[in-house]
């Protein structure tokens, strides 16, 4: 029973971090209606930013948010503005532009290989940081401190994003664009500017996820791929475009991965996660927490 509790807690903590890595993906999809294949690479860029910020200054890992959030927002904003927007304009009459997906795949390859060229294939871990290897001991139970920080950050980020979209003028403009970009344009909203901002927000959120990972995870050029696959599963599980769905979907995956191995080998839990993914696609294509209309 104690084991079960310990594993469930670890699952929820790790799962909420998975959810946070998927949150940016779901935001970008919700607004642009584009699956961003470069999402994992954006996470990777965030991890390198956070890694170097912490490794060079020696500050608390979460202080790197001050640098990571604005830099990632600007990076995402201009990535959309310069690289993706022209393709969007060429395909303006399609609701879900396919060529944009191909462009994001190109961005993924370029970013991963550029990182490989510049930083080499080494695995980087920040060895001296106040969160590294810290555990809370409750009797026999051990709970990872950096994961608790990550979970709290994930929940706060999700709540802030939710309120931003619900109650601010810009948030409403983003939602309007997401619901019907032509109608939004007629109401005076600059569609492409909104896309830039949404992409920037999605990238910044990946940056936040990157900061939560850096204290306990390795940073290397292809790290994004692992979280990319997980991100897609979580987003489909929770419902494409749904913010709460991303976090809860992440937690479900986390719990399966953490509790499952106590009854079977770790290899099987992967199969279960993918099985659940297919099942949800068959039974409820809009996802467990998704709504038929986005937002």
């Amino acid at each position, binding site marked *: 029973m104690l084991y079960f509790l310990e594993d469930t807690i670890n699952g929820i903590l790790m799962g909420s971090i998975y959810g946070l890595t998927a949150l940016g993906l779901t935001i970008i999809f919700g607004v642009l209606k584009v699956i961003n294949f470069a999402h994992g690479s954006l996470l990777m860029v965030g991890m390198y930013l956070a890694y170097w910020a912490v490794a060079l200054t020696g500050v608390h890992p979460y202080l790197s948010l001050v640098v990571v959030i604005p830099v990632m927002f600007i990076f995402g904003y201009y990535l959309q503005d310069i690289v993706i927007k022209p393709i969007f304009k060429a395909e303006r009459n399609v609701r879900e532009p396919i060529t944009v997906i191909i462009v994001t795949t190109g961005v993924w390859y370029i970013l991963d290989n550029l990182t490989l060229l510049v930083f080499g294939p*080494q695995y980087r*871990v920040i060895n001296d940081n106040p969160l590294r290897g810290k555990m809370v001991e409750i009797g026999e139970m051990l709970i990872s401190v950096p994961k608790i920080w990550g979970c709290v950050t994930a929940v706060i980020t999700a709540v802030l994003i939710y309120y931003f979209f619900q109650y601010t003028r810009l948030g409403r403009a983003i939602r309007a664009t997401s619901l019907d970009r032509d109608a939004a344009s007629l109401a005076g909203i600059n569609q492409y500017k909104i896309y830039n901002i949404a992409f920037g927000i999605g990238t910044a959120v990946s940056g936040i996820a990157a900061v939560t990972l850096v204290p306990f995870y*390795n940073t290397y050029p292809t790290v994004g791929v*692992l979280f990319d696959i997980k991100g897609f599963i979580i987003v489909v599980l929770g419902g494409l475009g749904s913010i709460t769905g991303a976090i809860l979907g992440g937690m479900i995956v986390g719990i399966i991965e*953490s509790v499952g191995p106590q009854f079977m080998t770790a290899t099987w839990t992967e199969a279960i996660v993918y099985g659940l993914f297919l099942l949800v696609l068959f039974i409820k294509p809009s996802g467990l927490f998704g709504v038929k209309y986005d937002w």
Partner: protein
Amino acid sequence: MNKTSFRQTSIGAVAALGLLCLSLGPVSSLAAQTVKVGNIIPLSGPSATVGQQGKNAREMAVAEINEAGGIKSLNGAKLELIYADSESKPEKGVAEAERLINTEKVNVLTGCWNSSVTYPTTAVAERYGIPFVVPVSVADKITDQGFKNVFRIAAKDSWWTRDQFTFLKDLQTEFGSEIKKLAFVYENGDWGQGIAGNWKKLAEEAGYEVVLDEPYPSTATDLSPVVQKIRRSRADVLMMVSNAADAILLTNTLAEYKVKLKAMISSGGGHADPSFIEATGRNAQYLFDIVEWETDVNRAGAAEANAKYKSLYGSNLTGEAVDAYLAMYIIKDALERAASLDPAKIREALAQTDLAQGPGMIVGYDKVMFNDKGQNQFASLVMVQVNKTDNGLERITVWPKSARRSGYSPVFPKP
């Protein structure tokens, strides 16, 4: 100038020039001044780096042998290296073997590093009856086919696990601490499953209790569930097969959960990755890993050979390079005893090899002696322990005991 007087001149001061003329002109068996060693190795393609290391090591050894007077029983005949690029392709290896034997008329062949190339290529040598020395290609089947002309120096695949278990046994004897329960944790690919399969057999034979048998996906983003299982299994020794990212994650997570183990034994791969020690730091301390060779093996001449290699080629010797280096000395030793260039006589001499010392013996094990299948029966791997030294964390050779870094005593059980 007739042939005899020509030979006499060439033995004199202008030996180098004479050699050049001879290798260009027709070679009669009487005037044999060079022994042609054909080397089929990957000099381009995916394994080019390893091929280059092997080439460097061969050149260093052959230069030493020739400087020391060549093959004395053959009137000081020199070794001549002829290379062929396999590009890591089996069909290329086979074609090059045909060419080297028929066109270049080589006396001995070596190669090919990639087991997939070595396997079909040795068959060509067997057909022509040309001795083929395999420095390192690990697939068991290369010597299991019972060819008469194939001699492998390095340990074969299945000996990696054999040596891990021998080491475990020696460790218990040396430190008088008993090990009963083993936990196996391995990546769920072909490599991990293969090794774990051998472990299970060996554990059963040796009477260990296997308390955990856990394959995990190398792409796992969280290994704490696996580490929890290790912790709850209360195993004495944890044996691992991991790729790079998961080796780091596993080692760090084990330390976070304060898992108590008497020893951790890994199987190279990710645990031998250059960034592993840096990324795990103290968490990797006391880990035992298995390798082909390590620069600090306690053998006469090993440090000097490594220093020389480093000054010539800019990097440390590797397991592959050491085996290639030794291969040249084994060929030299056989030629001395054969005193002939007849392939059958060289083959006979190779089969009777009993080499325990000399410049080439910088490997971890004590002796080279081939069994009736051509496998060096004394070949073994080297176990290292990661521990603190004055230079920070280092991989220190601990086993075989005769190759242990002098002055070092392994730490067991893990504190």
